[in-house]
């Protein structure tokens, strides 16, 4: 730990400081009140911010929870490399459970290898929660991402099937959080609920966080399908007659390779991404997540089934 004298004045207490303090407070509530928590860590930018917040909440001690990744095996290799590097740099325990395990067990039946695996992620997540007996899972979801998330509590209670009941949520007042669950139930906790995409980028810049380089502009083989730019990968190959081109793109989100589209961009630094984020006219998930475009309620339905 650095020991430098830094004095903040009240005047310089910014929105990022306010959000950071709120998130630290939430993580410490989980550490103090939950018996067996875990932090869901994917190697994406939001969960990388979560790691820094956990450092701020718990250092000089170790994290009072392991990092857990539910691997769809549809992830970008750069993201997995970043996941492993950050977990190892921090010296924290990383548990990886793969959808492949669930497929082998027969609890997931895949119909089409080239289709997104997000709908199945909930199955492996619930199996992992049961395997370790986690009573709380910290996740990096934000309310500005999606309409259903805008209505979800910071401490979001899930029943024994992992289901979210939007009409029957516990009231959440002040910063007094109800963390209680019965055996077999659990709580999803979202410490960065109140952060926006812009806040995340400003924080990555301020804290100089290491993120996968596919967030920055790079050249990549893509195809155009409908209005979307589709990255070519071993999972998604051009259909007969489809043209592959080299485009300069970056990813705004890094999810399942089969349904995460990059945006055309020349932003090669965090500052340039912030400038682009400030002027973009399309939402983060709208631009990049084809699975959320299928119906007005896609995310709400997935959450009801146990998705984080």
């Amino acid at each position: 730990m650095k020991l430098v004298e830094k004095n903040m004045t009240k005047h310089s207490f910014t929105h990022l400081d306010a959000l950071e303090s709120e998130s630290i407070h939430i993580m410490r509530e989980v550490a103090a009140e939950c018996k067996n928590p875990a932090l869901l860590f994917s190697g994406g930018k939001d969960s990388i911010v979560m790691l820094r917040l956990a450092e701020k909440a718990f250092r000089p001690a170790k994290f009072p929870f392991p990092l857990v990744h539910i691997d769809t095996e549809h992830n970008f290799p750069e993201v997995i490399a970043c996941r492993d590097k950050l977990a190892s740099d921090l010296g924290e325990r990383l548990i990886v459970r793969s959808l492949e395990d669930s497929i082998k067990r027969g609890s997931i039946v895949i119909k089409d290898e080239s289709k997104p695996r997000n709908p199945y992620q909930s199955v492996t997540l619930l199996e992992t929660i049961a395997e370790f007996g986690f009573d709380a899972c910290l996740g990096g979801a934000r309310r500005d991402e999606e309409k259903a998330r805008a209505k979800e509590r910071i401490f979001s209670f899930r029943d024994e099937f992992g289901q979210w009941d939007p009409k029957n949520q516990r009231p959440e007042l002040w910063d007094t959080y109800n963390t209680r669950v019965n055996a077999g139930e659990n709580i999803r906790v979202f410490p960065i609920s109140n952060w926006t995409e812009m806040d995340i980028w400003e924080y990555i810049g301020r804290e100089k966080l290491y993120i996968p380089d596919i967030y920055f502009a790079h050249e990549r083989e893509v195809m155009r399908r409908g209005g979307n730019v589709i990255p070519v990968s071993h999972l998604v190959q051009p259909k007969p007659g489809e043209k592959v081109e080299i485009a300069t793109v970056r990813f705004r989100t890094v999810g399942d390779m089969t349904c995460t589209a990059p945006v055309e961009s020349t932003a090669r630094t965090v500052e340039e991404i912030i400038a682009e984020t400030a002027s973009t006219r399309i939402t983060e998930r709208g631009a990049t997540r084809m699975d959320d475009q299928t119906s007005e309620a896609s995310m709400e339905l997935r959450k009801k089934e146990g998705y984080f």
Partner: protein
Amino acid sequence: MDTNTQLLRFITAGSVDDGKSTLIGRLLHDSKSIFEDQFSAIAKTSEKRGMAAVDLSLLTDGLQAEREQGITIDVAYRYFATPKRKFIIGDTPGHEQYTRNMVTAASTANLAIILIDARKGVLTQTKRHSYLASLLNVPHVVLAVNKMDMVDYSQARFDEIVSEYKAFAAQLDLHDVHCIPLSALNGDMVVDRGGNLDWYKGPALLEFLEEVAIDHDVNTSDFRFPVQWVCRPQTNEYHDFRGFAGRIEGGEISVGDAITILPSGRTTTVKEIVTYDGNLATAFAPQSVTLTLNDEIDISRGDMFVKTSAHAPKVEKEFEATLCWLAEAPLDRNRKYLVKHTTRSAKCLFSRLDYRVDVNTLEQHAVEKLNMNDIARVAIKVQSPLVFDRYDIDRSTGSFIVIDEASNNTVAAGMIA
């Protein structure tokens, strides 16, 4: 890059008929916080429903049931920013049975926008919303007199509503009320001033939201530090490190300050203020920090540090509070519940129900039982003492929730009187 923008949380109270969703839509739209894909989605829905223009109120409908039934069933949070401030909107439905949602959203708000339809003036629901804003001690209130276009932008009508409202508001504990005439539909005095309300010389709504002073919305005078988590690394490098992690809920603290640990009453001094970014000389609310102390004292989660020199909080096993009952199942006075107050939880009994407040008339009524949305003055006995302030002094150390241990549900919210 990192500007000095502050964070302002506000709520909007009013019904769909008052144009609440339209006002939020207008704020987001005119401040360029609506994205094209969001806009095209609501344009599509508006067309499907046979509307002539794009219905901005659709932006705030989140869940399937709401879209199907055209209602808002819960608190939704929206985010937008201007170069001066970042904003979090707690969007609460104005419908009668949803008092609990407004109470929930108001609990974290710096400011409440209370909407009035200029044609209708001060209604029962205006009084209810104002009472709840005062009960939750929301520091600033904006009375937004909407639909001025429907009353020919009449200054006389605005003045009439303002004086009626101020007469009513005088009974309440509202500290800072500001009245703004506007038309959400046409965009007058929301983000832009428009050309129809030239007689109004005050700030437009967004300008007011950007400028209102919020530094003193937290308790700045009395240091309050509930211990949240004890940090004991037990590594070679930090073998003897024992830090007390928490968030400062009031006032400020410096290295060397004398503190009292409550409820034990033991005293010591602050050795270090530890943060990940380095040690601080002084820290203030609402920073999250870790304190180390100059004496070894048995301290655990739930204890509260206060400055020895400051105004002392109460340490009691019985107290009076205003309670808002939030659960479908009514209060059962034969049962014990759990109070969670700051970082301390304790079993409790409701020893007295004094009266119920009619949120529409502010009249006090005799009370036998508490149902959902009821607000009542009660006396509570707890198994072990709590360390608290009056809610109007400190919103953090003066508030608590009540949990039903059988269902684990949060059944009530309380403000200590």
